[in-house]
């Protein structure tokens, strides 16, 4: 017997959604199946690969380790919310220029992680970059171009000031 569904109200990429969910539904599945925001990916389902990374109340979090019911009242940003309908953010642009994706499955998670990282550490060392992305796994690229992309993104952000997009700030659509 399933327990009764729980009503939740949450903001995702600046839009408010009301839904009724089973307590056991993961936030990742709510985003993907209920809200059709399929940019967030589920791979390992236990928090180690980073493909499901989103921003939850202004901090990155694993959406495969959050229940949808925990998102009631929360402000969420997914990869779709980084640029919205606008141009690619500096981080996205850098990934594109640096050929830092192949199949693209891990990319949304990297974008969320890297966007937050560069906001906190705008001029990172090589070592700091590698540490920062250690929580995101990629099976295609071998990481070299991802590291290059992070450096390039830092450069673009420095040049762009102000106007860079970071989690927590959604583009006005």
């Amino acid at each position, binding site marked *: 017997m399933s327990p009764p569904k729980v009503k939740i109200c949450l903001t995702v990429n600046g839009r408010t959604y009301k839904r009724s969910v089973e307590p056991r539904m993961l936030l990742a599945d709510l985003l993907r199946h209920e809200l059709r925001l399929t940019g967030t990916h589920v791979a390992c389902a*236990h928090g180690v690969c980073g493909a499901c990374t989103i921003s939850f109340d202004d901090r990155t979090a694993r959406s495969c380790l*959050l*229940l949808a019911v925990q998102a009631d009242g929360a402000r969420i940003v997914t990869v779709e919310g980084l640029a919205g309908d606008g141009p690619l953010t500096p981080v996205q642009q850098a990934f594109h220029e640096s050929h830092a994706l192949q199949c693209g499955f891990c990319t949304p998670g990297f974008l969320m992680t890297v966007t937050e990282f560069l906001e906190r550490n705008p001029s990172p060392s090589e070592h700091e970059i590698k540490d920062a992305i*250690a929580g995101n796994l990629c099976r295609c690229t071998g990481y070299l171009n991802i590291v290059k992309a992070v450096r390039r993104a830092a450069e673009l952000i420095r040049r762009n000031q102000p106007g860079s997009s970071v989690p927590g700030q959604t583009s006005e659509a």
Partner: protein
Amino acid sequence: MKPPIFEYRAPHSQEETLALLTEYGDEGRVLAGGQSLVPLLNFRMARPALLIDLNRCTDFGYLRLEEGSVVIGPMTRQADAENSGLVREHCPLLAEALTYMGHPTIRHRGTVGGSLAHADPGAELPAVAMALGAEIILAKADGRRSLTPDAFFVDSLVTAIETGEMLCEVRFPVRRHGDRHAFVESGVRRADLAIAGVAAQIRVGPSGTCDKASLVALGGGTRPTRLTSVEAAIEGRNIADIDIGGVARAGREDVDPPSDLQATSEYRRDLLVLLTQRALKKIFGEEAET
């Protein structure tokens, strides 16, 4: 759906939480940061009848200095403890160990209390709690009790928390004059669960004599493991007279590490000797023989 079916409640206070724990007994499971429990739910290795979510208890996330201890509430996030000026100044071993726990995204949700209550033998905080002699406070509907880490950590993923009880606070003693610390661990990635590690704090007197040595291994057994032989070889000795290599090797007999997919028991034993050496080199610097 990955997790199995469960009922869900999100209490707003300690009283509400304890009432639920008392009512549901072993069928209730507390959800703190979720970074250890939700994986178990997703694998269906945990099948609680009721999930008690502490994330709506707004006064559980405290961190303060009180009577010679850094006092941390049950829902204080690892990231907040790591970034806390109080922790960095008064409990630097804890501050350093926190930077090894997963990586920032995990630490945004993971809690100090939750990591202790989960009691993974490869986790950093249980070893730090034991090395520092932290006080672990448990609450039940009818009152509280305080345990030493030695009493609290029973076995792999098993603590002394009883039915109807929850971890409600942990108190880390502040560092005293002369305390030096080191935290070392080794894993496949920095962000992964460690294969083994050492949390060390040694009090060195003005003349270079070691008054007190506390070294605890993670990954050295089914619970945090005190390196008693290493401690005995250090206490009362002057740094200049300590043979770090010899002292570290003495620790081989203190541990009984598990074998698993990551590493054999022998590998962990050897690794722990190396990590103990590194920790001691960090603490003693150039003053010791190697």
